[in-house]
């Protein structure tokens, strides 16, 4: 009886744990891994960065910090790193490197390839990522949703899926400083309106007024939560016959306005709502006293698309009086540099503005040449985030609360489907080699995922929304009409 019990316990142990790998010999031969996680910098709270090799036969992996090691045996070529051991290892190695040695069994001995490192940053990233998933948009859609991902696991859950609201279009989800209790997103087509969640209270808004050309489009929250800066746009997309960019999204007109959340009023001024200029993509500085936005002279579109270049501008804003400044500063001048700015985002400490730079246009996801650049506010220096960039488009990005992490979308995988990458931004404002958002079986997962990631945002906690309640609100409630204050 006892023997039987021991046998069961032994079998269970064998089933649960992995036999320790003793590497007897290490060579200098490089092994190719997919995704490429070699020498990346990672946050302590990230899920295991599983990867695979194309080695044949029995392969193993030893992850070590010099004191502790984790042995992983490949299953179908994939190293599934045990979650708990990984977390413990990362917690013990904040600010240090951990070494990965891939090995192969030969004649009963484990022979290791040239080891590589991952650098564990001392700073964590915000625990959640929110993003939209949809098939790269070609005009029509069916299913899409806004999802959140716990970055310390592989768990993804819906914030809201459009199947709840007659498969309409969901877009532009935005949080106030990564707060999961204060957010908004728009619905277009059926049940149209803006869904707003402020301190847990839900509201449906109709933000189109007689004085604005459209409802609010690209929004950004004021740090106080009392205002939202947003563009109003008449947006069109056209397709190329045969261009690496596939298509061009452009506006025939656009303005920037501010929305007073408490008074349900929209206001602007002559600089932000100028008939001879197109303004778009507003963003507040972390102190709330500056409003940055993109600007370009009015053009005939799409004929003049190659000259549609956006400068980055700034204007003062006094949140106490709602007063906008009387002069505009040009931070980055597209006329002199010949490049066009997209998606400016300011770090929470107010030191860096990161934006996309491309030959023309402002919808960088469809611009193969778009790379991320940083503008250092202290001395005006502009430089590329080389370690984060690739030959394909890098576009929408967002900052972590502690300024050290940036998540961005990139099409480097196949030139079409955006995937999420995280990069560490060090104290000097330099980006470190970016890594693909981990998955349990990442190569298979991304190869089979037909949807693209869109608008990744760090969130400081889980968004707790009842989809049923949101759907009921958006389907059954008349939207609160917003007015324009002249």
């Amino acid at each position: 009886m006892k023997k039987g019990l021991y046998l069961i316990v032994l079998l269970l142990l064998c089933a649960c744990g992995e036999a320790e790998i003793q590497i007897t010999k290490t060579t200098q031969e490089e092994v190719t891994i997919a995704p490429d996680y070699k020498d990346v910098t990672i946050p302590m709270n990230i899920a295991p960065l599983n990867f695979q090799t194309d080695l044949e036969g029995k392969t193993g992996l030893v992850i070590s910090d010099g004191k502790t090691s984790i042995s992983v045996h490949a299953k179908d070529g994939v190293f599934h790193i045990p979650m708990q051991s990984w977390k413990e290892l990362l917690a013990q190695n904040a600010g240090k490197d951990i070494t990965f040695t891939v090995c192969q069994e030969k004649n009963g001995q484990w022979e290791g390839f040239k080891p590589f490192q991952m650098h564990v940053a001392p700073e964590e990233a915000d625990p959640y990522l929110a993003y939209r998933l949809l098939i790269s948009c070609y005009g029509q859609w069916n299913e899409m949703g806004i999802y959140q991902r716990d970055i310390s696991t592989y768990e993804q859950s819906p914030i809201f899926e459009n199947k709840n609201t007659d498969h309409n279009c969901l877009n532009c989800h935005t949080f106030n400083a990564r707060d999961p209790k204060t957010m908004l997103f728009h619905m277009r087509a059926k049940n149209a309106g803006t869904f707003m969640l402020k301190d847990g209270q839900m509201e449906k808004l109709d933000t189109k007024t007689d004085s604005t050309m459209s409802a609010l489009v690209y929004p950004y929250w004021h740090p106080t939560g009392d205002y939202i800066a947003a563009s109003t746009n008449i947006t069109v997309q056209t397709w190329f016959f045969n261009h690496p960019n596939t298509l061009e999204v452009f506006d025939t007109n656009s303005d920037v306005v501010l929305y007073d959340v408490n008074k349900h009023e929209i206001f602007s001024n002559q600089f932000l709502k100028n008939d001879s200029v197109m303004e778009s993509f507003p963003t507040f500085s972390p102190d709330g006293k500056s409003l940055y936005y993109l600007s370009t002279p009015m053009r005939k579109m799409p004929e003049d698309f190659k000259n549609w270049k956006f400068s980055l501008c700034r204007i003062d804003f006094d949140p106490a009086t709602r007063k906008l400044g009387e002069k505009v500063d040009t931070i980055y001048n597209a006329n002199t540099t010949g490049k066009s700015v997209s998606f400016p985002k300011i770090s929470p400490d107010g030191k860096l503005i990161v934006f996309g730079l491309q030959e023309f246009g402002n919808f960088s996801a469809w611009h193969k040449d778009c790379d991320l650049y940083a503008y250092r506010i202290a001395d005006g220096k502009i430089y590329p985030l080389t370690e984060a960039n690739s030959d394909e488009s890098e576009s929408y990005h967002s900052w972590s609360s502690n300024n050290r992490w940036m998540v961005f979308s990139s099409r480097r995988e196949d030139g079409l489907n955006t995937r999420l990458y995280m990069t560490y931004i060090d104290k000097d404002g330099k980006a470190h080699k970016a890594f693909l958002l981990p998955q349990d079986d990442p190569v298979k997962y991304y190869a089979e995922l037909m949807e693209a990631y869109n608008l990744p945002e760090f969130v400081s906690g889980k968004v707790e929304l009842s989809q049923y309640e949101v759907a009921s609100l958006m389907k059954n409630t008349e939207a609160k009409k917003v007015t324009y204050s002249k």
Partner: protein
Amino acid sequence: MKSLPTKIVSLSARITMVGIIAIVLFLYLQDTQEFTYFYREQNQLFLWDNQVISKTLLTIGGLCKVMAQVLVQYFVLAKMGAVITTLICLIGAHFLWCALKNLCNNWFMIPVCFLPFVIYNVYLMDNYAKYEGIIALCIMAIFFWIHTLLNNQNNYVRLGISCILTLIVYLLFGSVALLLSFCVLIYEFILSPKKGLLFAAPIILVLAVGLIAVNQAYLIGFGQAYGMQHYTEYYFEPTGFYSLSWIITITLIPIFWLFGKSKINALWLHSALAIILTAFLPYLYNTLGDNHQDKGMYSLERIIHYADTEQWDEIIALGHSETSNYINLNYLNLALSKKGQLLEKLFQYEQNSSQAVFLDYQQFTDIGVLRARQYYQMGAIGASQMNAVSAKMSMAEGSPSMQQLIIKNYIITGRYKIAEKYIQELEKTWYYADWATSMRKYLYNDKAVESDPELGMKRRDLPKDNETFTIYAGIYNDTQTVMTANPDESAASDYAIACMLLDKNFNYIIPFTQFNYENGYWKELPERLQEAILTAQEQNMDFAKQFGISDEMIERFAQFRKDALNLRHNGGAVTQLASRWGNTFWYYMLRNKGK
């Protein structure tokens, strides 16, 4: 106790009757829904992939959806839709009979058990009704029968098992569990009016689970949680008619009970009732189907099937009978273009504007599919891809034919990585896997693409200047871009000319011809275009001659004018010219004068 010969007679009568019903049902389904089955198959891309299947299984009604998708993928084979559907109906009706014969074991009642399934087949004439619905109904019949097997158990055991069965049906097959729970209640009530009410518990259970499912957003609304909306497309509100099948199923229980109580024992009467009830089934299907089926849609489904399978001659053969709307005409003209006969036969059909050749964009999936094919045919690959991806996206479950077009377009434009991704996906299907694998030879192999007759031609259609927009500036701009890149792409010029001629658009005809002729893109003008040039320049034959228009053609034009003038003097109708001149632009102009 029945004697053996009586039993044999009874058994053979039953088998004959069920056989007749099955054959008649199959024939009716094949006749009325053949192309709907093909259309259903084209509206899904079922992948044999554990992850995809398990994801579906984890949804409410997921097993039902997977079963439907597995079966529908075989609809690509001729007659398989009708065969499979008939079998489902047979199984469902059989188990319903097995359940209900406890109340009335008179074999003439067997045809009555087909009633809910026959009615359900009427719903399936409509693409808004998902195929899952008939599977769910069949499963319901099986579970109801299982419940009736528990007759010997005590009430509480039966109740417990019944609740579990209902829950299983709800989770795996969806809202049909409510129908099951009602059937159980009525059945139990009939057996024991006193204790039968206990069996309201499964209904309460379904209502509770449905409430939770809706609140947790597993299901969208109470229509999906408790009604037929679970088995229809989300954008469709099922009318009361869509509940008829379920209502009849419930009603059958007291009807069987009542007949069970009656004293109808004469064999002749049984036979007569069996014949009447059997004959009633096709009558019911016909009557309901006639009112329910959208004939225009069915006609389009037929054309779409021929296009999916590249049976262009079949579309052309339908010709005159199928020109009732613009989509049909667009497909007819696409088929003519595929056969190189677009201009030659342009005026042989009733069409009077370019809309018949190239329909304005509308946000309907079928139009997206059509335009993806038209743009591909004329060589505007970027526009074809935009429409193909959009159309595929708008079909929630995918589209094999659009996926194939997407793969070809990505290969043509040299975007091999993405093409490979789509190939990989298509390789997981049962029917299209071989085709998908056969496309691998083109990946990362420009030479193979360029030497392929079809793909090579389309690659040459791509403009050298890659900054040209497509769609935005209209069909003339798109076709001109293709012709400039590849003058051999006659489909592009044929489409442009067809549109100009049908619209009698002389503002385009002359400059368009001049540009293409003078730049050497056209060596010789098509006859229909020559006719248009002569019409436009009837006072200046020298102008016409510069495009190589022959004296013979000029003489023909003179003859036409003479005939037309004679006719006018004799007070004849324009249509009298049709026999000789009906296929000319001149006749088209005359017939559509002032339109």
